[in-house]
């Protein structure tokens, strides 16, 4: 065991914690209308509570526990943290306590379903949300984490590379978000009234905290305070910088002014795209990855969404789905053994890494999409996914949470 590595993964865990609350909560919360902000904060907060419990009780075991044989799912041997103690687990991280690896991964399991909130914001019933989230994490996230990261997982065995969760976290949540928002339908008056972000400073605060926490997400995934962490840290930072700037420049060219919402959105897209790649590519190529993700996500959000007319309220698919797919492919293009000997060479470095990446990008969305469709149908039949029209008009804060975010007269 190594205290420096342990310190780094512990603090990285804290950083990833901060990505969901307050990071994502405020990033999303600022974008909705005043009457729905608490519903967003509550969803993020309660995901933190519920999924953390799910994780220690059985989720971690399903994801990282001893493979049940076919590379599909882990066994329940580690349920309730049995055998998960102070000693390192050499399969995952040889220099830190096993418990530290477990809790670091817990934060990934929490943020993934939280990302989906952006798609169905302002119209989902809280009870349905809670049930859906628990089922989705168990039946979509846990298996996917096992496939890609678990010992014996089939995508891992295939040689698929996903440093910090491009597939596991972003593609899975982004694609599920798309399916959900299509099934759920648009918000009332969508496109008739303008839906303005009620508090953009909150969104910038949340965006900055996402960037802040993402250093733990990506560089923490090196599971030690070493050269690999350094590379992941640097590539993360400059891919993000490049993407934030690019988005602002696109807006400037298209609409005459760069917005801070655009720069922030671009930065988040950059963070998403570099996530699978950060431990495999060099910093200069990270810049390309960042520039291109801004272009792709801008197109998805400003052009494709407008054309197709689905109501992905806060662009969970447009940013995380599209960004995650691009990042996973980019890993197949730009990965270098020179950066990470445990990695592989991508297309541009004469290697064959593109193929496993494409397989992951083909299979994961299919799996996530179909499962989400099934879960939606089940929960909708059981509880009903959407709030009544009247509640949507009054706002979810008062109708789902029985509280109001701000006082008006004082």
């Amino acid at each position, binding site marked *: 065991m190594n205290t420096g590595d342990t310190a780094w993964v512990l603090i990285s865990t804290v950083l990833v914690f901060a990505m969901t609350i307050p990071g994502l909560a405020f990033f999303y919360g600022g974008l909705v209308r005043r009457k729905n902000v608490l519903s967003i904060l509550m969803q993020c907060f309660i995901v933190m509570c519920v999924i953390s419990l799910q994780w220690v009780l059985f989720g971690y075991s399903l994801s990282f526990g001893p493979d049940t044989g076919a590379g599909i799912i882990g066994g329940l041997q580690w349920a309730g943290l049995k055998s998960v103690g102070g000693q390192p687990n050499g399969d995952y991280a040889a220099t830190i306590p096993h418990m530290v690896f477990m809790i670091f991964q817990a934060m990934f399991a929490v943020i993934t379903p939280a990302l989906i909130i952006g798609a169905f914001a302002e119209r989902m019933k809280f009870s349905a949300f809670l049930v859906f989230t628990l089922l989705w994490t168990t039946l979509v996230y846990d298996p996917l984490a096992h496939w890609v990261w678990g010992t014996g997982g089939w995508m891992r065995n295939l040689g698929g590379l996903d440093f910090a969760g491009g597939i596991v976290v972003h593609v899975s949540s982004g694609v599920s978000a798309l399916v959900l928002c299509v099934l759920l339908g648009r918000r*009332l*008056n969508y496109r*008739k*009234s*303008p839906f303005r972000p009620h508090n953009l400073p909150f969104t910038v605060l949340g965006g900055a905290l996402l960037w802040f926490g993402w250093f733990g997400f990506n560089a923490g995934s090196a599971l030690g305070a070493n050269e690999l962490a350094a590379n992941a840290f640097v590539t993360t930072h400059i891919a993000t910088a490049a993407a934030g700037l690019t988005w602002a420049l696109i807006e400037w060219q298209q609409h005459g002014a760069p917005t801070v919402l655009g720069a922030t959105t671009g930065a988040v897209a950059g963070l998403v795209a570099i996530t699978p790649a950060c431990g495999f590519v060099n910093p200069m190529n990270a810049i390309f990855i960042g520039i291109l993700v801004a272009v792709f996500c801008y197109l998805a959000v400003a052009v494709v969404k407008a054309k197709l007319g689905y109501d992905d309220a806060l662009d969970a698919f447009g940013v995380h789905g599209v960004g995650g797919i691009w990042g996973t492919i980019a890993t197949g293009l730009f990965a270098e053994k020179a950066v990470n000997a445990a990695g592989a060479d991508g297309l541009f470095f004469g290697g064959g890494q593109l193929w496993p990446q494409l397989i992951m990008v083909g299979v994961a969305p299919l799996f996530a999409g179909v499962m989400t469709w099934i879960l939606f149908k089940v929960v909708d039949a059981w509880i009903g996914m959407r709030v009544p029209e009247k509640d949507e*008009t*009054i706002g979810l804060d*008062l*109708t789902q949470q*029985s*509280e*109001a975010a701000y006082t*008006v*007269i004082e």
Partner: protein
Amino acid sequence: MKYIVALIQPHKLDEVLKALEDVQIPLVTVSTVLGRGRQKGVTEVYRGAAREAGSLLKKVKLEIAVNEDFVEPAVRAITQSARTGEVGDGKIFILDLVETIRIRTSERGGEAIG
């Protein structure tokens, strides 16, 4: 001239503004108020203490100064676009307007109003 004050449901604002424009009444002043009417409030809970939300609900207030000919069109436009048929749809109040002055030009009366 008349000074029309209308209290409507907030989510109806865009429709009402559109309806007013359609009857050539583009000029209007808007603000947020709280109203206590016949509509029931929603219960709020803070740390286990539940309370009726005092039945003060968010409404939008429109103020519109018009010449006499435009009063009935305005009333019609508002009632039609703001109605949902549920309690809480709001009210229109009409007051007499003695004089209007356009600050920019110092014009007065019917000319200044538009």
